Every structure is written in C-alpha cells, then in structure tokens.
C-alpha cells in the first residue's frame, strides 16, 4: 500500500472460531468472530514492513503490511 496515506483493511475470518487480528506495529487489535468480517482503519504509515498475526494462532496466522 502507499506510504503516508490512511487506508481501510478488510479482514475476513474463514475459520469457524473467533480470532483476534493483532498487530503492535499497526496498533490494531480486533476480534473477528468465526466466519465474520471486520474492517479497521490504518493510520498513515511510514515506508516499512508492518507485521500482523492472528493472536490465537500465532505460529501459523501471520502476515505483513508493506508501505512504500
């Protein structure tokens, strides 16, 4: 995504159970129910990598937002 601009992130939980979308880098914590969707605002980001994870499946549910 472009750096320096706010954005909206839409998250879809395809599991049957709830998950918490968590990123200390993006400053986001949001619980999303099983099979539900949610959206969060991203603040304008400096160029860089911003990792996130599903807190309830820390080992496997990982990703990164790249701002450039």
């Amino acid at each position: 995504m472009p750096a320096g601009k706010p954005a909206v992130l839409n998250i879809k939980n395809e599991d049957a159970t709830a998950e918490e979308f968590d990123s200390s880098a993006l400053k986001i914590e949001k619980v999303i129910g099983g099979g539900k969707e949610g959206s969060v605002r991203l603040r304008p980001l400096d160029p860089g990598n911003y990792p996130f994870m599903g807190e309830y499946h820390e080992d496997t549910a990982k990703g990164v937002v790249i701002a450039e």
Partner: protein
Amino acid sequence: MLATLLIVFREVIEAGLIVGIMLAATRGVPRRGLWVSYGVVGGVAGACLVAAFASEIGELFEGSGQELFNAGILLLAVGMLTWHNVWMASHGRVIAQEMRQVGAAVVAGRRPLAALSVVCGVAVLREGSEVVLFLYGIAASGGTSALGMMAGGVLGVLAGAAVSALIYLGLLGIPARYLFSATSGLITLLAAGLAAQAVAFLQQAGYVNVLTVSVWDTSWLLPEDSVIGRLLHTLIGYSDRPSGAQLVVYGLTLAIIVGLMNLQPRARVVSPEAAAEMTSSP
C-alpha cells in the same frame, strides 16, 4: 501447550497488575477484599458474556461496536481512577496518620471502593474476554492436542495470578507513609495510559481522524510486544508508536488528574468525619 500457557499468562498478568495496584492502594481498608472480589468475579462473568456476544457487539455501529465498547469501558475506568485519586488527595493524609496511630484495622472504610471494584472488573473483562475466546476456540476445534492446550490455559491463569500476587506483595513493601503517594502516582499514570488506549480504539474505528500519524518509533529499542514493553504498556501506557492524538490525550489526562488532586483542600485533622466536613465546606 506452552504456547497456550504463554498467551493466557500474558493476558492474566495484564489484568493482574491492575488488580494488584488496586489492592495495594486500598491497604488497610476494611472489606476491600470483598469489593475487589466483586470486581474480579463481575469481570469474569462480563468476559464470558462479551466473548459469547463478540460477533454481535462487533456488528453494532456499522462494525465499530467492539472498538466503541472497548473505548467506553476504558474511559469508565479512567473516570473511576480519577475519582479515587481526587478523593485520596483530600483524605489520604488523614488515613496515613490513622494507620500510624491506631493501626490498619480502624481506618475508615469510606473510600470509593466501588470505583476500584469497577476498575478491577474492567481490567478482568477486557483481558478475560480474549482468554475465553481463545480457549473456546481450542475447545471447539477438538483434536488430540485440545486437552493439553486447556491444561496450558489453566497453568497460564495460575502462573499469571502468582506473578500478580508477587507484584502486590512488592508494592506492600513500600512503607505506609509513602504507599499512598506511590499508588496515587501509579494510578495517575495508569489512567493516562488507559485514556490513550481508548483513543487508539477510536482511531482504529475511524471516529478520531486527527493526529493519526505516529510521533515516534521506539520499536527498535523497546518493542511493545516484548515482556517489558507489555508491562510498561499496562502500567504507564507505553506505546512504541504513539499517535499524536494519543499523546495529547495522555498529557491532558495527567494534567486533569494532577490538577484536580491539587485543588483538593488538604485535611490535617485526625478523624475522617471531620475531614469529610472540611471538604464539603472548605
């Protein structure tokens, strides 16, 4: 199992720190254990309710229900902590005197214990609802590892409670005449940190769209998801990338609480009844 233990441990410590401070702040007050227990039990019940209705809460206010709910209960806690500190500013000296003269047991029980009870409840509710959702997910997914992970969850709760108890005992090591200023200071910083967290939730939901840019980035020095970063986040609201609005609200909250505390007439008499009269007609 270890991963489960760590996740649960982390959440329990965050709530436990706050409960420990509340207990230390009410040292020597009769029936404080009861009030704090009300808060904790209420928080656990609330956590189960919030977890059960997580999706429903989330869908309110066009999908921002969860953020508004979190911001709301955080601000409720900020209000209660402010009330407690302002009350202590006018009565604390009297209580400290009494503790020296007649021992802890006779200290008047007029303090706003309900306020601290609510704060404990909010802390347990917030962290607890995450634990409940997490453990429920494990239980629901079944499988052979589920039992071991549940055991990890239980151990995590016990370990978190044990560390929280140690922190409480550490706070009790502070001599009585400094204890109230120490806990008042801790509570002021705690309240400012909670207010800043509430702002983060409002920004995440798009209700506060000013000063959203991060003011600094200290994640290379002290990442917020490290152990110390998390403890400081809970205790004083440390953030490795705070937004401008968070900093403004943090500073405002500090200024308001300290200002209100200094506006209180200092009672110098011994009996709490007389102190109460002095504050009502300064």
